[in-house]
């Protein structure tokens, strides 16, 4: 993937939490229709990269272009309206809204969104529990809800921050199938993941993040050679 044809290009991205400098020149590209993961240890800057792309890091510099438009100075709602949707690590399910309200909360921002019926068909459990308060769902159900609600907005680019974290293996497997199917219907996905085996099932490329910058890039095809390197980076 080269920078010229990328759907999302991040170049020399720096970001700060207060005085603490956490991103030190992240550079990465995601092409249309790709699934790309950010791998790395806790605290490497993966989630911060997501937040910076979404405009949620107040202090950031460098360049982030989405479909060739610069977004580094835009507020989060303007960035979202370009067609980017974000599913945070903490899932962001609202306790004061029931499941149905959570599902229908995000405004439709893109042309040709998935219909509510179609999303509910993908996640039947959310229909059964539609009147429960959002945070009364199990962790797996909350993760499903967090993904389901950004699918019906018409966003074409998804930022998924550690969707498998803390979930049972059976749920992780379901999530893998869902993400793979999202890929086949044309979503572009940037995924933060610590579970490399999970991500290797469907990702096109992997970036390894350390100390707030990309230190290595591994294509899916290089996996045999790459997995040794990844093991070394992740220390597992």
């Amino acid at each position, binding site marked *: 993937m080269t920078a010229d044809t990328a759907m999302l290009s991040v170049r020399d991205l720096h970001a700060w939490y207060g005085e603490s400098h956490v991103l030190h020149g992240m550079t990465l590209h995601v092409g249309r229709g790709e699934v790309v993961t950010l791998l790395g240890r806790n605290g490497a800057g993966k989630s911060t990269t997501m937040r910076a792309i*979404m*405009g*949620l890091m*107040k202090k950031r510099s460098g360049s982030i272009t989405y479909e060739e438009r610069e977004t580094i100075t835009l*507020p*989060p*709602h303007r960035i*979202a*309206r370009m067609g980017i*949707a*974000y599913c*945070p690590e903490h899932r*962001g399910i*609202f*306790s*004061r*809204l029931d499941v149905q*309200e959570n599902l*229908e*909360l*995000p*405004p439709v*921002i893109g042309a040709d969104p998935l219909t509510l019926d179609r999303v509910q068909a993908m996640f039947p459990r959310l229909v059964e529990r539609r009147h429960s308060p959002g945070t009364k769902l199990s962790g797996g159900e909350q993760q499903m809800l967090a993904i389901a609600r*950004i699918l019906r*907005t018409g966003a074409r680019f998804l930022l998924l921050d550690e969707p498998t974290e803390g979930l049972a293996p059976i749920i992780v497997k379901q999530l893998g199938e869902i993400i793979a199917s999202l890929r086949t219907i044309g979503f572009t996905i940037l995924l933060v993941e610590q579970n490399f085996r999970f991500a290797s099932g469907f990702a096109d490329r992997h970036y390894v993040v350390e100390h707030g910058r990309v230190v290595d890039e591994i294509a899916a095809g290089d996996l045999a050679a790459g997995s040794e390197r990844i093991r070394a980076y992740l220390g597992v």
Partner: protein
Amino acid sequence: MEIFGIPAQALYGQLALGLVNGAFYALLSLGLAIIFGLLNLINFAHGAQYMLGAYVAWMLLSYLGIGFWGALVVAPLVVAVLGMALERGLLRYLRDVDQIYGLLLTFGVALILEGLVAQSYGWSGMPYANPLPGSVDLGFMRMPMYRLVAIAISLVVCLAVWIAIERTKLGAYLRAASEDADMVQAFGVNIPRLIMLTYGFGVGLAGLAGVVAAPVYQVSPAMGSNLIIVVFAVVVIGGMGSIAGSVIAGFGLGLIEGLTKVFYPAASTTVIFFIMILILIFRPSGLFGSTR
């Protein structure tokens, strides 16, 4: 007829008065709760904005001949617009600092507003003609017509606001943003604008309460600061940020105040603060507040 050795007429009379006070507590604490929920701001200008509502109603009548019902619509809008200008011009810049700054800023704004009004119209109050003279026979007591209407306006407005927040899409944005504004903004909702409108709406409610209060109490610069301390106690008792809690606590505490006037008049001005202390000890998040 007597109840617990108290003439029934006196009891009903004080309860009715308590409900009227409760109607204002409810409208004011509702606005404070909505503002606190989203902006995390303790809006100390709320009393002054209530006073401003009453003065705008008085000015509309005196200078433009616009009567009570017209003022009931126009004055809250004027107060809301002034509030939104305050949010845009000053409060916005305090979003990321400790909430004490917002409290101090709005307290200062309240003092300035009171001073400006007193400078123009004097500290002593001015009457606002009762738009609905006469009284109604409720069977067990006679009640001034206007006070009954004041209670009804407050009840209807509180109920409408509750429905708007709990049952509409805009209300869902407000509830969600009160929990996690960043997340809602990341969905594409213009949160800075939602904050401005919410602040305008909350202080508009204060302005509305001021209009309704004008015929009951005198229109005076200090009318808000006299009331707002009690209203903050009501908010604490109901639970900071709780919509239903603020309304129920508003009416309930108005009634309790009325009852206290009957049974132990000396305590009537302190009973709410006494209850507040008990709540703070035994249920610090308030009757309807969530711990967060």
